[in-house]
């Protein structure tokens, strides 16, 4: 293996690990509405570790049971789709109305199940490509709506607002993701070299996105000292 490949692998694992560990460190002091985001980072650490092992095996010329890694990634995309929806709900995207919130959670879950059962013919090892496009698009729309809300509601600089930075990271992550997943959807028979090259483009974006998430974790407001009627 070349040194550059070692560095790529190291960065892939460290990128989500740093904000996740920071999030855990600040967990007790953190405003509760951001807990789903820390959970998302935890899922990202697992997913990136998994993918890095996969990439390591590829560099070593070893085979990796692709089916197992796809099952893991399928579960990961479902989990983060739901967690981000919970996060946006806690930020007041649905104006505290529970009906549209539960509806979105149900639609997301059904889209995942539909992709598995109908489109993939109940093969759990096949990637849920349509669901991935759907949830990425939905999260981009949520992020844009939240940014629009922040323009009028935020009284300080947007760059010091954790939720704005998270939305920014989401847009920078999911817009290229939609394009890349779109390409794989419409040109499914590609060589492993092509897949790895495209994955590496995302790999170069990821550290930047996790850097934004790290700054966001640092800007998460502390728990508010509300008083109780004793």
């Amino acid at each position, binding site marked *: 293996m070349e040194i550059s490949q070692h560095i790529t692998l190291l960065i892939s694992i460290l990128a989500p690990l740093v904000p996740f560990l920071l999030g855990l460190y600040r967990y007790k002091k953190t405003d509760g509405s951001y807990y789903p985001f820390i959970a998302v980072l935890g899922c990202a650490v697992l997913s990136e570790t998994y993918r890095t092992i996969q990439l390591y095996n590829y560099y070593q010329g070893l085979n990796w049971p692709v089916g197992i890694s796809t099952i893991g990634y399928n579960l990961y995309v479902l989990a983060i789709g739901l967690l981000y929806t919970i996060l946006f709900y806690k930020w007041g995207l649905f104006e505290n109305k529970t009906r549209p919130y539960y509806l979105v959670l149900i639609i997301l879950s059904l889209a995942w199940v539909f992709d598995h059962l109908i489109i993939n013919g109940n093969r759990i090892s096949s990637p849920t490509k349509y669901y991935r496009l759907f949830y990425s698009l939905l999260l981009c729309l949520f992020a844009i709506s939240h940014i629009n809300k922040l323009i009028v509601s935020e009284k300080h600089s947007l760059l010091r607002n954790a939720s704005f930075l998270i939305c920014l990271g989401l847009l920078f992550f999911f817009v290229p993701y939609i394009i890349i997943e779109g390409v794989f959807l419409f040109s499914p028979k590609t060589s492993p070299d092509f897949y790895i090259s495209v994955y590496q483009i995302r790999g170069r974006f990821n550290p930047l996105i996790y850097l934004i998430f790290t700054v966001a974790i640092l800007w998460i407001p502390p728990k508010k*000292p*509300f008083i109780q009627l004793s």
Partner: protein
Amino acid sequence: MDTSEKAIYSALLIALGIVGIILLYFIISIIRQQRRYREVSLAKINAEITTLENERKRIASDLHDEVGPLLSAVKLQINHLDISAGGQQKELVEKSSLYIDDVIKKMREISNDLLPNILVRRGLPAAAEDFISKVTHSTPLQVTFENDLKERIGLEKEVNLYRIIQEVVHNTLKHAKASRLKIRISQQDGMIVVATADDGVGLPENIHQRKEAGLGLLNLQSRTDVMGGEFNCKSAPGKGTSYLFEIPLA
């Protein structure tokens, strides 16, 4: 990669580059727009609140310095009327004198509500305590007041915080159906923290969409914004409402 894959790969790189630039431009323009909006809206709120407070101050001063002495003079003159004959005229003069007393008392109350003397002279904790004791005596709401603030924080901030406390108490009386309200003023890490909690019905889910109900909250938000602070509200149906105001001292 074969030739077709290389072509797709190049097209993908170009597409991602273009989308990245558009996204970056979008984000930068949003940040700039928000900064402008923030400055303009803050200046507007500041002007509105300053005008409102100046107007209140002027009316309070006019009532106290001009109308008050005139009424006292009228009362003095009425009391000097020659009503030795007694009967109906004497009763009329006595009644008029009592009415004038009521008017003077009411006028002092209005003048005090507009700008409490105690706030100017002794500061926020004393004024808040005075206001709360009046509320506790005249309504069934039991208000507990705790204060850690030892020094004066500037009249402008004191007036805004006093108005905030008034608004919270009025909201609790009017909408919350609460029996108890707790108010605490403290100083933490260079911030003045005003925290309140009641045992009322809580805010309705769609409070922000209801114009008349949301007006009180908007008022609280505007006062907090003017002081460069943060306003947070926690409420659930049936579980009461808690407000938190964090105002920088500097």
